[in-house]
């Protein structure tokens, strides 16, 4: 009887601690949500007296902000497509062939995934100046693609390893080339893997502030991550409601992608039965 009470008391304490941590996590976030819908938002958390969509409208109707969102989509989408294609190509021989340099290459890839990108931004800027390619959406996207490659190659190879090679062998005997069997057999089967890499690349790119902040200067070429920072610098200390609305609009794609990514992650690795029957 005594033991039962103690277990119950323990459970209550655990729940209370967890609820308190949960509240601590949600309070900073609540400010953003309430302020965005508040016509007279302040820095303090308060329930809006008059709910309004005015802040969102003000942000969305500004052509400069529209441009920033479009730029962000161009950069992030471009980077994701590049990463998926280039990493997919690279993963194929790494998964299928015997290569003498496979081990050192994979170790280098794994090593590169953990290096902080911040550490190379000064020399990258110097390289861009030297090659006269600063202030370019195209080259910035290409650099971002390169920085996302190590992780993508690693994930892609692991997904590809789980696609049974027997499916391809049938195509090879029919005379298909390695490239066409990659495109027609492996790629469709590893769609969850491709989606995972694409989604996480997009999300990482969308949230990246430092790289475009360093490499792009012209305001009309900047993605939303840098534009929102400049908005904060100019109006951040007055127009809190608009800043919060801008923040929410900018955060929504990241949340949607995260939810999508979770779905693909959990449905992955389900083609084990493809060779049976």
């Amino acid at each position, binding site marked *: 009887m005594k033991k039962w009470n103690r277990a119950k008391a323990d459970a209550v304490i655990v729940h209370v601690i967890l609820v308190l941590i949960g509240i601590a996590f949600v309070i900073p*976030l609540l400010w953003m949500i309430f302020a965005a819908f508040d016509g007279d938002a302040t820095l303090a*958390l308060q329930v809006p007296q008059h709910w309004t969509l005015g802040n969102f409208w003000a942000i969305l109707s500004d052509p400069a902000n529209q441009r920033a969102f479009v730029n962000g989509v161009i950069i992030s989408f471009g980077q994701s497509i590049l990463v998926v294609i280039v990493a997919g190509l690279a993963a194929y021989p790494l998964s299928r062939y015997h290569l003498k340099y496979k081990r050192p290459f994979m170790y280098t890839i*794994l090593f590169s995934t*953990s290096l902080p990108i911040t*550490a190379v931004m000064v*020399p990258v800027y110097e390289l861009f100046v030297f090659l006269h390619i600063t202030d370019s959406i195209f080259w910035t996207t290409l650099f971002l693609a390169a920085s996302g*490659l*190590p992780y993508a190659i690693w994930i892609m190879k692991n997904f590809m390893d789980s696609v049974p090679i027997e499916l391809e062998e049938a195509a090879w005997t029919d005379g298909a080339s390695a490239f066409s069997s990659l495109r027609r057999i492996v790629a469709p089967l590893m769609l969850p893997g491709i989606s995972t890499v694409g989604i996480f690349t997009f999300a990482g790119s969308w949230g990246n502030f430092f790289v475009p902040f360093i490499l792009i200067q012209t305001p009309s070429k900047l993605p939303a991550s840098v534009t929102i920072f400049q908005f904060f610098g100019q109006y951040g200390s007055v127009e809190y409601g608009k800043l919060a609305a801008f923040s929410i609009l*900018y955060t929504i794609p990241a*949340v949607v992608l995260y939810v999508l990514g979770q779905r693909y992650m959990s449905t992955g690795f389900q083609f084990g039965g493809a060779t049976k029957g």
Partner: protein
Amino acid sequence: MAVHAFAKSTGRRNRVPGGVGQHTGWRAIMFLLPSWLLLAVFFFVPILLTFYFAFTNLSLTGTSSLATKFVGFQNFVSMFQDPTFRISVIKTIVFLLFSAVIGQQVLGLLLAVLMNERHRLFRSAIGVLVIAGWVTPEIVVAFIFYAFFSDGGTLDTFLSVFHVQPIAWLYAFPMVSVIIANIWHGTAFSMMVYQAALGDVPKEILESAAIDGAGRFQRFVRVTLPMIKGSIATNMMLITLQTLGVFTLIYSLTGGGPGNRTTTLPIYMYQQAFSDYQLGYGTAISLILLMIGIVASFVYLRMLKVKL
């Protein structure tokens, strides 16, 4: 997430592709070429450039911008005489220690342990709140905490209930503020790593320990902790590397200030290279960052013990 992905990598494949013959070598190179090119130009060249430019007086303005010279260890000599550099090393260590090693690790593990064996709905409700901080882009995290810590912000309003005078936290306690913001943003990663690790601890062992009379705390220290120590070590390296590179959050929350009270190495590197236009000196600072990163990555690789 990263840890799960890497953990799956141990499966070794040794298949011989049919129908490819002797040309496998060239074909493999064709497939690998685009990635090699991109990585070489944008990843390995900058790393090599770091080693080169760190020994030059490269700058964007002044006489040395016209003639960049090799200056040997000059940048490093000035670095070790530079009091601001010493301060930024200390700030980086404090930031790393309290936000990553202590904050995210301990809070992440605590959350995972407390959430273990709770009701599924309750778990996911708390989980969603913690993960929301992780999904929020770094720059938005900075705005949220700007509002939270500002003079007259949410924290002051809350404390005024207890008759605490308003404090401009970002000026009074800037380092504590950025550390809390970074813990809020990063903890979900550690929590998810530990949730996965705890799920792999066999229930039978915990049950038999309970039958042998081990209490809740004893079971955790004697059974669970030793079984997840691999995850603890890997997570430690990963979040150390992530935290080492944090720039956006600190830059937009405090700008490294007031004074240089939150000037970590990435912030100081940025200030030297892009505000003071001393690219050579800035590169020397990034070389230090890079070296720390390289050493930590090697330790991390050794710990993973992956078979390829």
